């Protein structure tokens, strides 16, 4: 894993050092900027420094392109610079993320029409976080092109891309969200410690106590061999994965946002109680919000959005979600995941227009939405299509269900139901935490770390799901 992961000893030590030096250097931007950039590169290149070169190259190319776009009056040159940057960014993604898949599929196709197997099958190492920093780079140059943000210096662009809290798995930050913060020194007397510590603690619990437990005890065993499990176990594994991926990904994002807050920076929210959604459109306003707005602003709207009639709108929705699926990885399972979401979003829009004024009861709308999302998760989680269909085909199977235990059912239900807890409850918790003496806060956090480590056991925390994207 070519980066330090949050819940590790290495990160704890790294963060204490960075925290102290960052606040010490904050009044001196000329020293702080190179410091935070180097710290982020150390974080990213901890295991393999070569990936840092890729990140540097990405920052360099996109900075040059953005400067050309900003400085030249010629529309044609601006457009060429934009296209060059996007081709470079997508080229990186294609080489590192999709090359193996496309070569393999092409080879199969050539073989099937009798042309033999002429292409060498190669496995390309996937640099961690490449999808995230590439999307950020595209958003930056497009925003400069659209004059929604100013072209920044190489140093600022490099920090925007590499800032370690969001580097590996988001949130996908837009230039106008972070660059203004970089330009204004943060106030060391006003650290948002309550939300920061609360998010880190909550993220740790979500990951270790819920996500990893569900993965180990239900989700992985059932998805590894659906045919050997009863319908009840398969259902619990499907709901369990819905809970697991939420706790895994939002847990990581919480820790990322919390870490940034302790350093004085506000990152955009990425989840807003997604399993309370009562429509697919609502779901995508609550789930991986920074990706969905990226897809909306840089793909769906440029494709035409909903401006050219219903048919075009459905096509655009489907294309956007299919590409969103492919963003996760080069596999047909992700394409189908995107297809289910695209199809459901289109169907929802069609139904709304067809039966204007008719509304499903809220509980029914929630029920349908949640189960469409769960159906899509089956494809997302399955290693291949046969496993996915095997899971769905096994839902009605009988037999003993030793994996359906009270703790696993409780964790699954709790992870989903806890989203209905009003936000003010958590805000009160934060306020209570920061009103305690420093020692009490420290002991409470320390206790939580010990408990979280005990929950995961000796094999340690499993890698975050979104690290592979």
């Amino acid at each position, binding site marked *: 894993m070519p980066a330090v992961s949050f819940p*590790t*000893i*290495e990160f*704890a030590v790294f*963060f*204490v050092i960075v*925290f*102290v030096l960052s*606040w010490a250097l904050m009044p001196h931007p000329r020293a702080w900027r190179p410091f935070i950039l180097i710290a982020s590169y150390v974080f990213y290149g901890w295991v393999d420094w070569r990936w840092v070169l890729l990140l540097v190259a990405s920052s360099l190319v996109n900075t040059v392109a953005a400067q050309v776009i900003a400085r030249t009056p010629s529309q044609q040159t601006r457009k060429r610079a934009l296209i060059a940057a996007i081709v470079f960014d997508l080229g990186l993604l294609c080489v590192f993320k999709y090359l*193996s898949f496309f070569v*393999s599929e092409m*080879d199969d196709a050539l*073989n099937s029409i009798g042309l033999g*197997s002429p292409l*060498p*099958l*190669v*496995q*390309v*190492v*996937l640099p961690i976080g490449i999808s995230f920093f590439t999307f950020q780079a595209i958003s930056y140059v497009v925003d400069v092109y659209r004059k929604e943000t100013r072209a920044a210096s190489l140093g600022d662009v490099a920090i925007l891309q590499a800032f370690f809290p969001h580097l590996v798995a988001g949130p996908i930050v837009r230039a106008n969200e972070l660059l203004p913060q970089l330009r204004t020194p943060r106030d*060391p*007397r*006003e*650290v*948002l*410690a*309550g939300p*920061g*510590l609360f998010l880190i603690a909550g993220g740790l619990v979500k990951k270790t106590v819920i996500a990893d437990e569900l993965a180990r005890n239900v989700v992985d*065993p059932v998805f*590894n*061999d659906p*045919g*050997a499990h009863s319908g009840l176990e398969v259902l619990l594994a499907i709901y369990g994965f819905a809970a697991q991926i939420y706790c895994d990904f939002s847990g990581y994002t919480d820790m990322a946002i919390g870490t940034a807050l*302790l350093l004085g920076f506000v990152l955009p929210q990425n989840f807003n109680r997604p399993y309370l959604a009562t429509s697919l459109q609502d779901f995508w306003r609550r789930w991986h919000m920074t990706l969905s707005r990226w897809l909306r602003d840089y793909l769906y709207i440029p494709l035409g959005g909903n401006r050219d009639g219903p048919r075009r709108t459905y096509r655009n929705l489907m294309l956007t979600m299919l590409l969103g699926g492919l963003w996760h990885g080069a596999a047909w399972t992700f394409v189908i995941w995107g297809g289910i979401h695209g199809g459901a979003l289109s169907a929802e829009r069609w139904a709304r227009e067809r039966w204007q004024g008719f509304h499903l009861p809220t509980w029914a709308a929630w029920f349908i939405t949640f189960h469409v999302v769960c159906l899509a998760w089956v494809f997302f989680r399955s*290693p*291949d299509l046969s496993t996915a269909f095997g899971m769905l085909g096994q839902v009605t199977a009988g037999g003993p269900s030793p994996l359906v235990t009270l703790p696993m059912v409780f964790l699954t239900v709790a992870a989903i139901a806890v989203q209905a807890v009003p936000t003010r409850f958590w805000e009160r918790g934060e306020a209570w935490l*920061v009103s305690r003496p*420093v*020692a009490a*806060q*420290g*002991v*409470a*956090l*320390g*206790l939580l*770390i*010990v*408990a979280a*480590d*005990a*929950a995961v*056991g*000796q*094999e*340690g925390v*499993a890698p975050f799901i979104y690290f592979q994207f």
Partner: protein
Amino acid sequence: MPAGRVLGVIVIALLFAALFNSEAIVRAGDSMQPGPTRDIVLSVARPLDDVAGAVGLHLPREGLDLAFGQEDKTGEGTELEKGSTAILRPNRRKPEQQSFVQPTPADPVEVFVTGDSQAEFIGQLLTDELPDDLFDVEVAARNATGLTNPEFFNWEINAQQEIAARAPDAVVMVIGGNDGFNVLVGDQLYGWGDPEWLTEYARRAAVVMRTLSSEGERPVYWVPPPTARDSEQNAIYETQNRAVEDAAAAVPGARYVDIFNTINDGEYSDELRIDGDRVLARQSDGIHFTREGAEVPVRLILREIAKDYEALASP
């Protein structure tokens, strides 16, 4: 809140966690690859753990482990860490032929597939490919584990726990991908290039083989790593394969499944041929099989299993 106070909270939290979690930190340090980070973590964590243990600070964590149902996978004084090479001596050689109870639909063979992360896909494919009516397969991969780092995860202890809990009829053990650590023999530390490392690795493999087979009661199909893309890693795996072959020859019930020399004639390749079709067989790390590629070692394992269970033998 001022940054200074925040720092206070963080430092107190980490110190508290370090004191009450000192054993886990030592284990985490032990699991790291050799290098300065590991040295620093262990040089701080070990004295801290001694102090914490002396004043009873391990107790709360032990209580939490109990509450979460975690079994301790390490321990002192095991044969895996310190033991005699007598286990490898020729006078302990197993009988030429052993026979095991053959499966019937009423009494299928319980196969337990375990090992490190490489066991995951291999276990899944064995589950798919062994006849359902004659073989029940359970898979438990223990990621990042190996035989050269018992301070982090002791396979002798884990094998005892698993055999007691599952009582399988046969075991497939896929392990070795994380084994490159120096080993301590007496007071001397040996690296993988030393002949003593090979002997010690063989001894440790034999100890775990004997535990898994319960002295020959059940067959243990031991699968050391295949070739690796990285040449140094490949050399470590080659040494391990030689050690495991020696160990398997001495332990009743143990079978060495050679996927190192047999696959692609011992040459690393991202792609392999299965039934004439080329598949992308290795993951990007150049070590693990892809799910599709795991079919290749699985066929070799099935061939070994078929020698003990006639139901799998080709007509």
